C-alpha cells in the first residue's frame, strides 16, 4: 500500500499498522532530509509530486514487491511539501513471516521509488539559492556516466562512440531467466544495452543457485524477474530493465518480440523455442538461441527472412515430438556450460547491434563441449520441404496436411521483386514498413506509398490483401519475411522489394 502526505510522517503509527500475528519480522527504511548533497550544503527540501500518477505508480511498486516476495505486507508513505533537515521524507515498512523476504522487499521498494516515482525535489542551499533535482537520477549522478562506465569498451575500435550509442538505443528481450538467461542478461546490461526486458514466470529455487548467477541464497522463493531486474539495475543504473513475471504464450509473444533489436531464447523447452522463433520471423527480429545438455551446448542464430530456419533444422518435426526425447531438459547440468553458452548468446546479440556478426554465423549451428573445450560448426542448409522458409513451398501452411489452394495470379514475378520490374506489374500499392522510431520522408517518397509500422500486421494484411502490393523495408530482409508470411496465409500478389527502401530512394528518417 502506498500513500502520499503533506503532513509529518509518524513512524510509530505506521509501524503499528503493520502488526499482525503471522509476522515474524518487520524491516523499516526511513529516508531523511540531510544537510548536504553532491558536496554542497543543503538547508531545506521541497517535494512536489504528480499526485494521481505518484499514487498509481506507488501502489504498483508496493504491489510488485508483495507479489515478488510472498507473505510480505508492504506499507510506503512519501512526503510532499517543504521539509526541514532531519525530517522524514519517505517511510517503508515490510512485515513478513521471515526476515529474508522483508529485507529484499524493502530494498526493492526504495530502489523502485527512487527510479520510478514521479516526485521532484527542490534543494535549498545557503544564500537563498534553490534548484530542482530529479530524484530518479540523483543516486547515480556524479559517480557514473556513460563516459566512465563504458570507457574500456567504447575504446575498442570495433565499438567506439557510435557503437556505444547503438547499444544504448537497442532493445533486447531475454526469455528465460535461468542458467543461460542470468549470465546473458548480466553482460547485456553491463555492456550498455539501453533497454532490456526479462521474461520468466518462475520463482527462485535452491537448486537454481549453482548456475543462475543473478540469484543468492536469500532470493529463494522470490520472482526471478524481479530479483534479476533489481540486480541488473544495481550493476548498471544507466540502462533500463523491465521485468515481466509471465510465461511466453501465443497470445503475448508477438507483442513481446515486436520492435526489438534482438531476442535471446534462454528457455528450456521446445514449445517456447518454436513459438519465439516463429514470432521473431514474423516480426523481423533476429533470434539468438542456445540450449545445454550437461557439459555440452548448442548455439543458433536465426536471421529473419533467411532460409535454414528452426523448422529446417528439425526437418518439420513438431515441438511435442521433440519434448519426448530422453534426458531432453531438467536433468543434471555443469554450471559453466550454461554460463559459457549464455555469455555467447550475449556476445552474439552485442555483435548484431554492433554489426560485427560474421554472415556465416546466421547459417550454422555451433556445438560447444566443455569437456574437451571443443567447438564444432555445422552448416544449416534450407530444408527443401520446409513449410516456413522455403520460397518454393509457399502454399503449405505449417501443420496443415493438405496445402491450401494457391491464390497466386498468373504473373511470373518472384516473391522478391527487382526495382526494374515494378513498372511491369501495373498499378500496385507500395507499402513502406517502418521500424520503431522511423518516419517516411514525404519529400522523397514516391507518390502513393503508404507508411505502416512493421508491427501493425493487421493493417499490412488489409493493405496487401486488396491487390498487388510491394512491401519495402530498410534493407529488404523484413519485407521478404513478411511477404512470405502473407503468401503462406493465402495473400496472392504480394512482393518484397529487393534491396529495400534504399533501392528506390524512398527517404526514411530515423527519429
Amino acid at each position: 500500500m502506498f500513500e502520499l502526505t503533506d503532513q509529518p510522517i509518524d513512524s510509530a503509527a505506521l509501524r503499528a499498522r503493520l502488526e499482525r500475528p503471522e509476522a515474524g519480522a518487520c524491516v523499516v527504511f526511513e529516508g531523511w532530509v540531510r544537510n548536504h548533497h553532491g558536496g554542497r550544503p543543503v538547508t531545506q527540501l521541497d517535494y512536489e509530486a504528480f499526485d494521481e500518477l505518484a499514487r498509481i505508480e506507488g501502489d504498483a511498486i508496493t504491489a510488485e514487491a508483495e507479489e515478488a516476495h510472498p507473505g510480505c505486507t508492504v506499507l510506503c508513505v512519501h512526503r510532499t511539501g517543504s521539509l526541514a533537515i532531519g525530517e522524514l521524507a519517505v517511510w517503508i515498512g515490510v512485515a513478513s513471516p521471515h526476515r529474508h523476504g522483508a529485507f529484499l522487499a524493502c530494498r526493492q521498494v526504495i530502489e523502485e521509488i527512487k527510479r520510478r516515482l514521479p516526485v521532484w525535489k527542490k534543494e535549498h542551499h545557503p544564500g537563498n539559492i534553490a534548484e530542482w533535482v530529479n530524484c530518479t537520477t540523483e543516486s547515480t549522478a556524479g559517480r557514473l556516466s556513460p563516459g566512465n562506465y563504458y570507457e574500456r569498451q567504447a575504446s575498442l575500435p570495433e565499438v567506439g562512440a557510435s557503437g556505444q550509442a547503438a547499444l544504448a538505443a537497442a532493445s533486447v528481450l531475454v526469455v528465460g531467466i535461468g542458467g543461460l538467461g542470468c549470465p546473458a542478461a548480466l553482460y547485456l546490461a553491463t555492456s550498455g544495452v539501453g533497454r532490456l526486458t526479462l521474461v520468466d514466470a518462475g520463482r527462485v529455487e535452491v537448486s537454481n543457485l549453482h548456475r543462475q548467477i543473478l540469484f543468492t541464497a536469500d532470493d529463494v522463493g522470490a520472482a526471478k524477474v524481479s530479483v534479476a531486474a533489481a540486480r541488473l539495475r544495481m550493476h548498471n543504473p544507466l540502462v533500463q530493465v523491465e521485468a515481466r513475471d509471465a510465461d511466453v504464450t501465443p497470445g503475448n509473444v508477438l507483442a513481446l518480440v515486436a520492435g526489438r533489436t534482438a531476442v535471446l531464447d534462454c528457455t528450456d523447452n521446445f514449445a517456447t523455442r518454436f513459438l519465439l522463433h516463429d514470432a521473431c520471423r514474423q516480426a523481423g527480429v533476429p533470434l539468438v538461441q542456445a540450449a545445454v545438455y550437461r557439459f555440452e551446448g548448442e548455439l543458433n542464430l536465426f536471421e529473419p527472412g533467411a532460409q535454414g530456419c528452426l523448422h529446417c533444422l528439425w526437418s518439420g518435426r513438431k515441438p511435442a515430438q521433440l519434448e519426448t526425447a530422453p534426458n531432453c531438459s531438467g536433468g543434471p547440468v555443469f554450471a559453466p556450460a550454461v554460463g559459457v553458452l549464455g555469455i555467447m548468446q550475449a556476445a552474439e546479440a552485442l555483435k548484431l547491434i554492433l554489426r560485427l556478426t560474421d554472415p556465416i554465423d546466421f547459417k550454422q549451428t555451433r556445438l560447444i563441449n566443455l569437456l574437451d573445450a571443443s567447438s564444432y560448426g555445422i552448416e544449416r542448409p534450407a530444408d527443401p520441404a520446409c513449410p516456413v522458409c522455403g520460397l518454393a513451398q509457399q502454399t503449405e501452411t505449417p501443420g496443415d496436411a493438405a496445402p491450401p489452394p494457391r491464390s497466386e495470379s498468373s504473373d511470373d514475378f518472384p516473391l522478391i521483386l527487382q526495382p526494374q520490374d515494378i513498372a511491369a506489374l501495373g498499378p500496385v500499392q507500395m507499402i513502406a514498413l517502418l521500424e520503431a522510431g522511423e518516419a517516411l520522408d514525404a519529400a522523397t517518397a514516391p507518390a502513393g506509398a503508404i507508411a505502416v509500422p512493421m508491427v501493425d500486421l493487421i493493417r499490412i494484411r488489409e493493405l496487401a490483401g486488396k491487390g498487388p502490393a510491394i512491401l519495402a523495408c530498410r534493407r529488404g530482409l523484413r519485407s521478404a519475411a513478411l511477404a512470405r508470411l502473407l503468401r503462406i496465409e493465402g495473400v496472392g500478389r504480394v512482393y518484397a522489394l529487393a534491396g529495400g527502401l534504399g533501392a528506390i530512394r524512398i527517404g526514411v528518417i530515423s527519429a
Partner: protein
Amino acid sequence: MADSTRQVQVKFFAVLREQAGVSTLDCATAARTPAELYRELQAGRGLQFPADLLRVAINERYATMETPLSTGDRVVFIPPVAGG
C-alpha cells in the same frame, strides 16, 4: 565386397556421446545411409536413443538420414537439446 563397405568417422554429441562411451569412432561400415549406420551402431554400441528424433550432419552440414554415405565422410548424430 570392397565396393560395398566404406570408411567413415562418426562423432557423437550429448546423450549419444554418453551412450556410445566415445566422442569419435572410426568405422568400416556396409551402411549406405546414416539411417543404416545408426541401426548398426544401435546394435553394436548399445545406443538407446530413438532414431526418429535425431539430426544428422555429414561433413559439417546437416543432411538427412537417407543421404548416401561415401568413404571419408564425417558423420555426426545430434539429439535434441533444450536445457537452459
